[in-house]
């Protein structure tokens, strides 16, 4: 019975999140093309490109001014049709919407993938693995540092190391990419022992083992900068939660019963803290999706964030919208998965089907 309630709850949440994604993606498209401003810029750029390519083509040298203009207009209007500009925005917006939701993200205006494709989905798919590789690694390391560090600190409450970490926590108000700048400055620019950025050496090593080693070498600085930035805060917040829950009445009762410390930790503290830890982890994960943009830019790490920066500089609308949509999906999936995990971990939720938000 309870599991049925839970499944119904999950279904409800799933539908809610799906509707949220629908609206969010449409909002993205509308924001992206507010007042047709983007259309105008892209149109004028196409016009420039068309007229320049004709003017520079020696085959069309014999054309006089009127013939030239007509030719430019013809090719320009064809080009507009190719990009779907002849229809009103409302029509296009629904088209864009459908395309965005089905991940049929169209063709990039200026950028292309390593393999030379202009397909936005291929371009983004190519950049997804590096981002996932780097930030999953970072998050897993941070998660375990926080868990183990928090547990051991909560046992040594008030010790020198405990006080030191509490004192140093404000250092975590500086973001990871910011420490990244200093890491580059020290290890790449000054000591010259690690690369400035990128993912592999140029040219990439041929053997798979050396390739992996090279990637690993490039991962050191980004990981290090995130660890410096966030390991303190995650240790500290875990420690606070552990301490809060080890002073609950039922923990005191367990102590009074004479249960061993390890059992109390595992069964009474960890169990109740787990939902909060998951929340923390999820927030970390979500913020890492966002933080990736700047970190990847600083380290020239060829992931989604770096692509967004490149697309911004090249004014490549479809790619920017595509990335926003991908991020929206990632966020939605993360939230949904977490709500499910929450339900499994928190019996109250399973029983009542009530609302316990992730964030």
């Amino acid at each position: 019975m309870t599991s049925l309630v839970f499944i119904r709850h999950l279904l409800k949440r799933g539908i809610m999140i799906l509707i949220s994604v629908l609206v969010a993606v449409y909002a993205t498209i509308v924001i992206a093309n507010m007042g047709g401003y983007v259309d105008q810029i892209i149109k004028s750029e196409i016009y420039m490109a068309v007229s320049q390519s004709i003017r520079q083509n020696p085959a069309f040298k014999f054309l006089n001014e009127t013939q030239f203009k007509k030719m430019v207009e013809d090719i320009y209007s064809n080009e507009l049709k190719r990009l779907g500009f002849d229809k009103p925005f409302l029509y296009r917006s629904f088209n864009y919407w459908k395309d965005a939701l089905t991940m049929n993200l169209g063709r990039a205006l200026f950028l292309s993938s390593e393999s030379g494709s202009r397909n936005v989905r291929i371009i983004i798919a190519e950049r997804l693995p590096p981002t996932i590789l780097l930030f999953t690694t970072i998050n897993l390391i941070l998660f375990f540092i926080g868990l183990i560090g928090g547990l051991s600190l909560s046992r040594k409450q008030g010790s020198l190391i405990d006080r030191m970490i509490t004192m140093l926590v404000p250092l975590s108000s500086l973001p990871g990419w910011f420490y990244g700048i200093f890491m580059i400055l020290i290890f790449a620019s000054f000591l010259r022992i690690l690369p400035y950025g990128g993912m592999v050496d140029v040219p990439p090593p041929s053997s798979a083992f050396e390739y992996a080693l090279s990637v690993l070498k490039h991962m050191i600085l980004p990981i290090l900068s995130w660890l410096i930035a966030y390991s303190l805060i995650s240790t500290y917040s875990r420690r606070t939660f552990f301490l809060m829950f080890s002073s609950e009445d039922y923990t005191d009762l367990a102590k009074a019963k004479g249960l061993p410390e390890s059992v109390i930790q595992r069964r009474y503290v960890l169990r109740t803290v787990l939902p909060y830890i998951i929340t923390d982890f999820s927030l970390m994960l979500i913020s890492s999706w966002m933080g990736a943009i700047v970190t990847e830019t600083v380290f020239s790490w060829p992931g989604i964030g770096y692509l967004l920066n490149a697309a911004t500089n090249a004014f490549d609308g479809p790619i920017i919208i595509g990335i926003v949509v991908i991020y929206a999906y990632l966020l939605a999936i993360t939230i949904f998965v977490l709500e499910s995990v929450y339900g499994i971990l928190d019996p109250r939720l399973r029983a009542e089907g009530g609302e316990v938000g992730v964030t």
Partner: protein
Amino acid sequence: MEFWIQGSELKVVKLELHKIRQSFKQLIVYKSALIGLLIILALISISIYTIIALPYGKAVELWKAGEKYWLDNPRNALPSWVNVFSSRKLPETITLSTEIPRAGISKVIIPAIGKLNVIRIEFSFNYEYDDFPSELNLFFRSKFNISSPHLTIHWIKPDGEDIVLKTLVISKEENYYISVDYGLAYDLKNRISQKLSKPIEYGMPIVVSLFVVEDDSALNPDTVKVMKGVYKLWIEGTTFETDTDLDAKLNVYGKVYGWAGTDHLRRDVGIAILWGTPIALAFGVTASVVIAFMNIILGAVSAWFRGYVDTAIQRITEIFMILPFLPIMVMIATFFRPTLFNLLLAIIALSIFGAGVKTYRAVFLQVREFPYVEAAKAYGAGNFRIIFRYLMPKVLPTLIPSIVLSVPDFVFLEAVLALLGVGDPLIPTWGKIIEDAFRYGALYKGLYYWVLEPSFMLAITSMGFALLGFTLDRIFNPKLKEI
């Protein structure tokens, strides 16, 4: 009856004020909070000084004025105070102009036969630094009708060596960039290698060959030494009209400038460091305060009314939680190139329905069941009176730490947008300096000051608010205090 109610409300407010005042006293006890407060006060003083000493309009104009305005500054110079810490004294910029007479500058025009005049300009300066200058430029301004003056430029080293740099016919405004005259570089290098009768194996720049001690140490770029002493630049020329006049300006560009150094366009980085302060503070504080209050109001409304209002607010919040904040901000900043103020508005608009709404709603759901709220309802207080006078004051103290703690986030958000190249193009901010530095390879070239100065400001601002915020958190959340 009415009076009594007023009194009780006043009491609630008074109690809160008292609590805040007491907390402030506690705050001073914590050393870290004191440091944080001092940092914030220092930043506020810098902001006030900046706004008074360098008005906004002037700062923006100076910043976008381009290289012409800054022509007398060295390019990518370190801040001057590095000389205090180093035994190797880096050169300051030396500017000598016949239009601003002082010791070491002389200009004589001697009438010769007929309309012919002989003109002599002499610049002399003492060069006592341990490093070579970065550039050498000579600017001419002359008045004539048809026939332009004919000039010969001499360079005299402290040991008396006389070198002819160039013979030229000048126009009314002529610039001679001595340090990039590659023909001259070749000749000068040959001259030194002939003198030493050994070949010089590396490309010796003009700033080196004009200032170098001409012995065997000049053969290796690592051992070259500066010849210290009085240098002279001598311009001798003939003019062909009676009322011809000639002014010249010599710039010996140094390697240090001002208290903050210069960037790739010779601009004083100090301007951006100073102006970055009020902008960062105003941006960060406005964004965090406005967003926090919007969130708290929405949370209270949602929790108080329940029903449809609650559902609507919660669903909208969920949609906004799905919208990826930073990518959308980047998108907006790219497509619309907003000014800093519009950027702030966009950030606020995207954050009104932030995750905070859910947190505060949960808190208000508990508060609304408190007896004093019930009492207010019983005497017939309106919905909004209850929300603004009863619910919100109760939660406000716990809100303060999170407002203070979120200030750095928004300071960094502005920096991030500038770093991604989508910030306000006109206003000099810290993020913009970092972006410029990155774009022009400051870390590759070892121009660390360019990155470190704005980074230091960002870090110190962030630390100030974080130190204060964490301490406030401990004071307002007693549960944390025990731990």
